[in-house]
């Protein structure tokens, strides 16, 4: 137990340093301004676009057809229940990252939600914590923790299979993966198929959203990039808008920008 926790501390320190280094590394390539005015670069855009295309093919010919079948078999309420079940299993990640960000109230809420939903919510398939007690779900991960402590995102990346990311969120994924207790209880031949079911179920809940986004996007790559950057910034701030944000105003007064 002691060895485990010291390894975790080491990993935390190392990942913070790595995220910091990567964050400063790159400032070339196309510039994207997020809604809050943060400048993000996409120096690997040509490579990113290829990986994006690869992921899209994979989705189009494998994941979407499978998810369509899943959607045909399972009614929507069942799919939402399965989605809640997987979200409930992420409790250790929510709790740890609430603690890492000193969000004591969030940590209590996450614990309360887990206890109520695992029992009264039948293993998490239902969400009585939200429906009866108004304890709203909230999503925390280590990428958000790094952002909350002020780490920059670094350049935009598209990962094979996993999609949009950046160095900060790559580190986040790694730490969340390593700190997950699920492998202590379940062997890989259980967790890997479960991951597959999770992916298929999530995809089947968003069949029409994705279809519509693709139909309306003029350049799907930039559409996803912009949405990812803004959405992650919003998650890091827990949906709170900074009050005085002159940089945000630039979006709404393009003529007053210095050329």
């Amino acid at each position: 137990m002691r060895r485990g926790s010291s390894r975790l501390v080491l990993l935390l320190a190392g990942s913070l340093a790595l995220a910091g280094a990567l964050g400063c590394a790159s400032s070339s390539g196309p510039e994207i301004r997020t809604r809050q005015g943060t400048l993000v670069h996409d120096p690997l855009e040509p490579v990113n676009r290829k990986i994006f295309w690869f992921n899209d093919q994979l989705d189009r010919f494998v994941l979407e057809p499978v998810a369509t079948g899943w959607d045909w078999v399972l009614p929507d309420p069942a799919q939402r229940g399965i989605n809640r079940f997987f979200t409930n299993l992420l409790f250790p990640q929510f709790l740890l990252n609430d603690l890492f960000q000193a969000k004591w109230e969030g940590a209590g809420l996450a614990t309360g939600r887990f206890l109520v939903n695992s029992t009264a919510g039948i293993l998490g398939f239902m969400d009585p914590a939200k429906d009866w007690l108004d304890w709203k779900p909230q999503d925390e991960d280590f990428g958000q923790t790094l952002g909350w402590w002020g780490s920059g995102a670094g350049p935009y990346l598209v990962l094979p299979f996993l999609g949009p990311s950046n160095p900060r969120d790559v580190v986040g994924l790694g730490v969340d993966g390593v700190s997950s207790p699920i492998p202590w209880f379940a062997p890989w031949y259980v967790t890997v198929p479960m991951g597959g079911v999770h992916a298929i179920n999530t995809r089947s809940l968003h069949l029409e959203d994705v279809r519509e986004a693709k139909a309306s996007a003029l350049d799907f790559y930039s559409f996803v990039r912009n949405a990812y950057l803004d959405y992650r910034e919003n998650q890091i701030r827990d949906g709170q808008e900074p009050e005085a944000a002159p940089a945000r105003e630039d979006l709404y007064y393009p003529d007053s920008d210095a050329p």
Partner: protein
Amino acid sequence: MRRRPRLLRALSALLLALLAGSLSRQASAAASARDTIEQTSARVLEILRTANLPVEEKRRRIEQIAYDTFDFDTMSKLVLARGWRDLSPDQQHEFVGQFRTQLALTYGRRIDHYGHEELKITGERTEPRGDVTVQSRVMGGQYDNTAIDYRLRQAGDSWKIIDVIVEGVSLVGSYRSQFQELLDRGGPQKVLALLREKNAAGASVDVAEPPPKTN
């Protein structure tokens, strides 16, 4: 010397009056921007929930409301940003029309899927230069608890929506980054050509769309 206190008093009264005036104008500005969102969402929901109204008719009526509530001229300028000036007046005029159609198609496409939710207004904020952001959340349905902010700008004596922000992702920001990419690669002609193509395809997509799921 004797007149100075009176001058000061007059000045401070004037300042106070101006301050009070601007304060109350801000307060009523926020209120009426909020009213706009409240009334619009109520009207749209009423149409969505009208049983035995053909989808095509629902779409037509909601589009009409959108034309009254969104400021498509301003939105067009915002999404093109500095690129707006590279368009000739004719191109600008066409862009506003095409962009409006594009938005109408995007939102109209799924009209038969909405209607089970409510919009709860959770707050409002006056922005530094006078715009008002009305914050809301979707209650119920598939998108339960989703945060939607509407940014409004005063146009004459009414308030018009200039941006919709869903979970921190801005509609204007999203289109701006896409148009930026297209303008860099092919200029205004490319942007207009793609919009025309998209809109033509979108108009026929509706017919080919599979029927909505029943579960």
